[in-house]
């Protein structure tokens, strides 16, 4: 067996193990792994400008300002509002007070620009809302 084949098999095995480890951290709607890149976590800093309080997935719009001063709005989805509400979360709690928040999450696998998934939102005073396990 060639070294290349062995390393390819090892890579596939590693990928499989990673997916198996990450899978239980996903929300009920199992489309997440088919839609977002589970291999690396992204971090955004910006201001939440709008929330689509809908099922089957909540959508949060984050205005991110680049170093050159231009602002881009990211569409970031997360768990269903049905689950957020039962955990005691409201739209107003997610919106915060308009201050900058830090969001960690995943990028869309289909290459759609400025589309992502939220694992966790952290607010300036230190409190956070976490919706999924972060990849390590």
């Amino acid at each position, binding site marked *: 067996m060639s070294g290349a084949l062995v390393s390819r098999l090892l890579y596939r095995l590693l990928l499989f193990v990673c997916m198996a480890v990450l899978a239980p951290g*996903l*929300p009920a*709607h*199992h489309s997440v792994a088919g*839609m977002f890149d589970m291999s690396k976590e992204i971090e955004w800093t910006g201001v939440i400008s709008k929330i689509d309080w809908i099922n*089957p997935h909540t959508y949060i719009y984050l205005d991110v300002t680049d170093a050159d001063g231009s602002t881009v709005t990211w569409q970031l989805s997360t768990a269903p509002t049905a689950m957020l509400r*039962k955990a005691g979360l409201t739209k107003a709690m997610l919106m915060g007070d308009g201050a900058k928040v830090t969001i960690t999450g995943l990028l869309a696998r289909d290459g759609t620009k400025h589309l992502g998934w939220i694992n966790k939102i952290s607010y300036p005073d230190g409190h*956070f809302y*976490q919706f999924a396990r972060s990849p390590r």
Partner: protein
Amino acid sequence: MVTSINSRARRVEILLNMMRPERMQRILKILPIAVFVCSGMPIELAAAPDLSGTWDNGSGIDFINPTREGESICLMGCDPLPAAPAANAPAANPPRPIPKPDRPAYRPEFQDKVRDMETRQVYADPVIRCLPPGVPRIGPPDKIVQAATEIIFLYDDVSGNFFRVIPLDGRPHRDDVEASFLGDAIGWWEGNTLVVETVNFNEDTWLTDDGAFHTADLKVVERLDLDDDKLQWRATAYDPAALAEPWELRPRTAVRAESEILEAPLCLERDLEHVIDETHHDNPR
């Protein structure tokens, strides 16, 4: 007048006769039995527990176990808490093991379909497309309104609010309604257990979140009990045309909810166009 005096004398005579020692002994012997029989009947009739209330079944997903620490809330994948909570802070829920998927076994001739539905579950899932989840997938009710002759189950689920009106007056299943997502239910009491039998389902729902299909012959029997003020929900799916054997779901427990159920937000599917393959994970519900 004479008749009246005679009548009163006769009544006194009867009374004195009843109070004779040997008579009193006989009455005292049967008195406990009479008391037991007379008092037992109303107790038996009033025995049905009141299941009314708003119930929290943890969003219906076993691995969703929200924890709170101060103002922070974590739904999933929560790290161990960094420090001991303050004395007046709400206690965090202990981490729970993730249960294995709970799925029915199918007849041999359906194995190809089982594999196909499991593979295509993301694209085929009716709930992702905002259709009603069906029974038993919907799980225990989020709210129960109980009356003497009917009981009403209310749900606040991912794809919307749903209701089931379940007659308890002994009537049979209806034969004048179309097959539906939540079917036609009747209920009755077996001791302290509410039994709900539902039939007349369409074939557009799943038994689980991960592609467990059923036929129109599906019958679901749910059993609800109150145990230490917690709602215990069990359900069994009978579908001999597709299932190898009746499938009894993992039991669920709901506790009294701290908040009222609300009008469900709109369900709008906008993800599937971005899903690029059939990657999925098993849902343990």
